[in-house]
């Protein structure tokens, strides 16, 4: 199938310095109602894998290290 790879800016940003996913934390991944946060295989840290965010904020509110920032998706901002 012919496909295009388009770039999309995702609204949720995770500060890799602060993220302790390598110590086993999965909180933001667990709570996200849209299941769009996953572990980045390359870094071992959490990241937004799918651009399907309701900007609802449990990920940010529940992160133990304040590593998550929810921005308003660009199309709406």
């Amino acid at each position, binding site marked *: *199938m012919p496909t295009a790879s388009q770039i999309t800016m995702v609204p949720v940003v995770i500060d890799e310095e602060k993220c302790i996913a390598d110590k086993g934390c999965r909180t933001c991944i*667990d*709570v*996200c*109602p*849209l*299941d*769009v946060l996953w572990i980045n295989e390359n870094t071992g840290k959490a990241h937004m*894998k*799918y651009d*399907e*965010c*309701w*900007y*609802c*904020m*449990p990920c940010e*509110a*529940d992160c133990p290290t304040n590593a998550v920032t*929810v*921005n*308003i*998706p660009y*199309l*709406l*901002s």
Partner: protein
Amino acid sequence: MALPEDISVIDVDILIIGGGTAGPMAAVAAKEQNPDAEVMLLEKANVKRSGAISMGMDGLNNAVVPGHSTPENYVKEITIANDGIVLQKGVMAYAQRSFEMIQKLDSWGVYFQKDETGEYDMKKVHHLGTYVLPMPEGHNIKKILYRRLRRHRVTVENRYQAVRLLKDKSGAVCGCIALSTRDAKVIVIRAKAVIMCTGAAGRIGLPASGYLFGTYENPANCGDGHSMAYHVGAELTGLECYQINPLLKDYNGPACAYVTGPLGGYTANAKGDRFIECDYWSGQMMMEFYNELQGGNGPVFLKLDHLAEETIQEIEHVLHTNERPSRGRFHDGRGTDYRTKMVEMHISEIGFCAGHSASGVWINEKGETTVPGLYGAGDMASIPHSYMLGAFVYGQICGENATEFARNRELPELDEAFILRERERILAPLKRSDGIPPNQFEYKVRRLVNDYLQPPKITKKMDIGLARLHAMEADIPYLYARDPHELLRANEAQHILDCAKMAAFASLYRQESRWGLYHNYVDHPQTDNDNWFCHVQLFKDEQNRMSCRKMAIEPYVVELDEQEKSAYQQLRVKRAG
């Protein structure tokens, strides 16, 4: 035939699908009814933070509190707001248990606003009565529910999407097939009774922003329950009575006139003038809103800039911390300050939601659908304007009744051939190596909905829309998912297509106009009580075709006088002179 080993079957007494608002309450009620019953709560996301109230709630929109109103008056108000098309017994069952539920939640630690004397601090927002109870500290509600689930030892399965309901030979529902959203595993849950609490169908229309997940409703609520109920043979009702909400333009979250109204804020036109008498949502109110948007006086705004500093701070505290806390960020990004600027509003895309409107899977006052063993509560079931408290009350009603139904039932037999066929179907997109990506499929369905099905409704347009939606069925065998997450979206997209077809079909069937904007049918502009003072039921007929029928409205338990009947028709502010 036996099921292959890689399909695990879990046996429970009561299965609850959807762990948002109604679901956890249903699970607790089932355990309270029969502590020995095996109760499972299945959730597509994680019950800790799922559903409409994932971050909390600003208030109760429909609290029937003694001293402020009565169940009879509430039933009247809701009947009028729905142009008479209601199962009054169903609304009454809610109203009679409303206060008891508030007290139960209060005893669990949910904080409701009280006045100096310790009484509930009720606010008037509705056209006739007083029903709004603020919850400025409403952000811990999910935590409180979760604690109850644990205390009652409810089995919780997170990250499973229910995809199809199962029936036994007698025609009673006996469980569901579910798909793990993380590893695409298909499981079967066999149950003696099933309660659906899957929320609104909030992903049918396309938000004006074009962002698929920028919906008013929590986008996990995409109409799975509506589609599952349809396929298992249950009737749906009032689907032509769309949900369309007033909201903050682009942000698509509620403007919260219910919060700001009692503090002096209001919905205004571009001139800053009030144009509706009452901010309580109804089809009639939405019609006025739409007219103002389309007319020379639009856009429409939430006006707060006349309020005192401390009032604005109070509003900011509630609106920027509770229900949709990213709202403050949205305003900051655009430099919108309530003190100096009116906030632009708009209307939402269409959806099905009994919580705010009246459309959904038909249930009676016991929470029963038309299929034995299947119950429904909350936004997906048909009790109109039920909001959060209605979800709790009907969750409880269903929990009690489903438990009694299950008590007398033997372990049902599974239809293995059906399960195997369904597993093939559900997993098919993952087995392909190319095809149509779910997001493009979904975008197309939802774009067709906006182009052809949004009011004002026009026969010719809806015919084209329905034909194009039918044509998209031929695309389903080409849906392609690269991973389990995309498979979840591919299955959701098919349910969204079902909902879109149902919206068109029911709208074409009801040949009159009713509920203001919700069913504003240009080809039939008048309300026709002689022919259409009835419910419209939608179902799958014996030939597997989508069908509708009229159903008589049961005799009212609370009569209305003539003057009251038209109260919601007079929402436009009368101009002087």
